[in-house]
């Protein structure tokens, strides 16, 4: 595979501490001219890559980027990694690394490691294949479960929002509101905020259940409902503050 733009990367070939250069992404996979498209690139560095070499590398990359920009090609550079990190990530079958290696174009491989790993991955040995599938499925499942759990954490954030909005009114009166209980107590003295006090009490109860670990689920639709209530509370508080300020004027 040869793109005219590879010429721009020639400087990388001359740098000894650059062990490997890998191009990947749709530009490479589809073999199209990377005009108006990103050129994905991964640089692999020697394990003893030093800080003094970093400056030189950054200069070279800057000049490559400039040269590519003049050809309307955007270089999408992955954070460079040392050879041992790269090997570790291939061994642990990190999907994008494996995919980039399998389908990408090796531009430089001074140690021969990239080609060797590419062959191993391409051979799809049974154990490797099963491990890869397992890894993808486990990661997908973990991602879904983690996100569902994070939805539960939104209850704390919503409670925090109610507390902060209450603090905004209370600050006017010189009150410090340390926690939701004090906020609800404070709101009891403000009849015009009765409905918000009720909402805050309800949310605090949900939060307590969450903290006790007895709340099974909190759905996105519930998040939206509470968020709308919060926004309404915030708007009402802002209007009240404005009204008071106007009356002062």
């Amino acid at each position, binding site marked *: 595979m040869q793109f005219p733009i590879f010429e721009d990367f020639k400087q990388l070939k001359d740098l000894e501490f650059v062990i490997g250069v890998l191009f990947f992404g*749709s530009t490479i*996979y*589809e073999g199209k001219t990377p005009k108006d498209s990103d050129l994905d690139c991964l640089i692999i560095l020697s394990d003893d890559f030093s800080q003094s070499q970093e400056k030189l590398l950054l200069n070279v990359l800057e000049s490559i980027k400039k040269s590519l920009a003049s050809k309307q090609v955007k270089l999408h550079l992955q954070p460079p990694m040392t050879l041992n990190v790269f090997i570790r990530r291939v061994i642990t079958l990190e*999907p994008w690394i494996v*995919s980039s290696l*399998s*389908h990408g174009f090796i531009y430089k491989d001074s140690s021969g490691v990239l080609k060797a790993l590419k062959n191993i991955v391409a051979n*799809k040995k049974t154990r490797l*294949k*099963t491990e*890869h*599938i397992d890894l*993808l*499925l486990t*990661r*997908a*499942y973990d*991602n*879904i479960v*983690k*996100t*569902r759990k*994070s*939805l539960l954490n*939104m209850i704390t*954030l*919503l409670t*925090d*929002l109610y507390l*902060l*909005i209450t*603090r*905004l009114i*209370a*600050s*006017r*009166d*010189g*009150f*410090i509101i340390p926690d939701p209980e004090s906020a609800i107590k404070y709101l009891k003295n403000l009849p015009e905020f009765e409905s918000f006090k009720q909402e805050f009490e309800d949310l605090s109860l949900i939060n307590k259940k969450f903290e006790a670990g007895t709340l099974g689920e909190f*759905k*996105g*639709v*519930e*998040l*939206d*409902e509470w*968020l709308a209530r*919060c*926004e309404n509370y*915030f708007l009402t508080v802002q209007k009240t503050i404005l009204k008071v300020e106007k009356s002062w004027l």
Partner: protein
Amino acid sequence: MVVKSELVYKDLERIASYEGVIGLVLYKQKQPSVLIITEQLAGQERKLGIQSQHLLITILSLEEFLARVMDRDKDLLNILKAGLIVYDIKGVLKSVHSLIKQGFMPGFNETELNIYNEILQRFQEVKRFKEQALINAYSATMDVLGALMYFLGETVVIPKKAEQLFKKHLITQGIIGAEYYKKFKYIYKLFKNFEKGKKKVITGVDIDNALKYALELHEQVDQIIRKKLDIT
């Protein structure tokens, strides 16, 4: 606050030299004034006879001063906020002053602005969470599809080809039911519209559906692979 009189500063210098005086705040109300903070009880200091012809004097012991700060005495805090700390041997005045400036004292605009910004930040956090939830559901879906494709000897390397691959390899070959293609398409389109900026707001319903469909796809693909591998 500007008090230019040299005599005032000479007086301040003299007051600062009194034993037990630990802080001075110069401020101007109707006339140039000074708040004196002492180590001892104010009454005892008053007996020392701190006087000035050019400054109106208020004396507070450190304990009295701190008690009034705790009570959020607005007059005192306003003096600290607007006044000039000219002497502060213990650093207490500067600490309280920075608390006001940083917006930690109720009743000040700085505090309200702080709270206001925090509220806006929290709203942003919720928005970011919803976007991240969609990204997670999409990533999970692509991983599930990737696993199945890899199992069949194919690899999803370009996300935009995923939809085509799904149809070509999975539906037409009867590997997976058409209803799962619909679920996949829902997540894929939702994410792509968000990525391209066509969908600006991610709703709770979007998240619920995306997560539900991603999980159903995962369960189905897991079942297909296990069945083919004959793993029970």
